[in-house]
């Protein structure tokens, strides 16, 4: 099993970073935590590596959020910038979108959000069920709700901005 780790590292690392990024919202921190998770996997040699990695990563992200709440970088572009219309700089735009999605994600319940992020990171319904303690049959229902809420919250955020901007 350990000899597969290099391959798992290569194929799963980006997904794990993506998963963590949406929890800590700092790509370097996310990479740090992802690497830490792999380093622990080397030592622990868990049975099913991928699932294990996501559990450990989620726990680390939670601890990390508690411990380093003050250091967290907040993407405050939207609130601080009056968004001068002509300066539709690509990067600024992307940052703003990201911030909006983040806000929308944070309106989901923790469980809905977790299931959605795990699915997006490439885990199967079975893996998600194992990790969240949900019945397998409930994963689809949870995902359906999580997706709908995400899309609705995002749309609502856009509306509010337009109103706020006048």
């Amino acid at each position, binding site marked *: 099993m*350990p*000899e597969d*780790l*290099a*391959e798992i*590292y*290569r*194929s799963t*690392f*980006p*997904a794990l*970073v*993506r998963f963590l*990024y*949406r929890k800590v919202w700092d*790509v*370097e921190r*996310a*990479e*740090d935590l*992802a*690497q*830490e998770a*792999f*380093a*622990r996997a*080397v*030592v622990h*040699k868990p049975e099913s590596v991928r699932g294990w990695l996501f559990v450990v990563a989620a726990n680390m992200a939670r601890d990390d959020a508690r*411990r380093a709440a003050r250091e967290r970088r907040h993407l405050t572009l939207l609130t601080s910038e009056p968004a001068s219309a002509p300066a539709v700089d690509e990067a600024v735009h*992307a940052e703003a*979108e*990201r911030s*909006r*999605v*983040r806000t*929308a994600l944070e309106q989901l319940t923790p469980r809905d959000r977790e299931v*959605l*992020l795990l*699915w*997006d990171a*490439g885990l*199967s*319904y*079975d893996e998600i069920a194992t990790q969240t303690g949900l019945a397998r*049959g*409930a*994963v*689809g*229902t*949870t*995902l*359906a*709700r*999580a*997706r*709908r809420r*995400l*899309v609705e919250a*995002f749309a609502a955020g856009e509306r509010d901005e337009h109103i706020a901007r006048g």
Partner: protein
Amino acid sequence: MSISHVDDGQLHAYLDGELPQAEAWRLEAHLGECPACRGRLEEQRALIARAGELLALAAPPARDVPPFPSRPGDAQPPPPARWPARLPLAWAATVMLALAAGWYLRGEPPIAPAAPDRRAAAPHDTARTVPTRQAPESKTLAQQAPPAGRALPEADEAARSVAAAQRDQMISGSAVPNPQITPLDQAARAKPPPTPAAALAAPAAPLAVRWETIPWDTARVMLGVEPARIPNLPAVAKRRSAAERVVLVEQQLASGTVVRLHERPAAEGAPGMEVGAAAVQRVDVSERLARYVGNLRVEIEGALPADSLSKLLELVK
């Protein structure tokens, strides 16, 4: 069919390719005769696509997969509770990098793209053709670039980083390898090297005894080219005997870590020599890390973090 209307959860599971076969058939049968549910299917399909788009917007910037795991966070002191774990982790990191890089250097194409692979693995999926996964952006394999793809560093920068690594090692109090490394060592061996016997027999103790120091010029003549070495570090050339045309370049870093490069003339077959194995890598239980870069055997004695190792290997290449 006697199924009543389907719920959103089933539709999502179906569209995600995660509905068990029997249920999927029943659902399709129902869809065949229920326009309302067909409409809902399309709504949910759009919803899934939209959610995928949004998540893709919140994806981290695409970056190369770093070597396993360079630890940029080392600059800031970690919480005390984590200290006991650090050294083993550093070693695990080094070994892991060796595994990853070794794999990479074997020049084999990446095995299988991650996402479809997973679908195929789920038994109830194998016969399915209908739904595939949405949110293509968030799944791009482009993000799963191969590791070890570092830009070529400047020579002295690498030397510096090696030196810095040594300092770090001293700060952390010990250069003794941790027993944790053992399972990995086995893992490294489990990946069968082409000539395991030669690789295992070659490197260990007798180095100091059997190798004689030779002038640099002699080494150059033996190889026909300038022997490989790390720039900006004093180097000593050695050979085992005049008959064996293998040059050993030994370079010592400030704090005692020794880097050894075994090199033979490019054209030579040298059967039985450890350098004959093209891209073997193995990890010793001792403080020695041996790697092959093409023909060149690179041996490192002492601790060296993953970062520096990868730079070193780039340099040597």
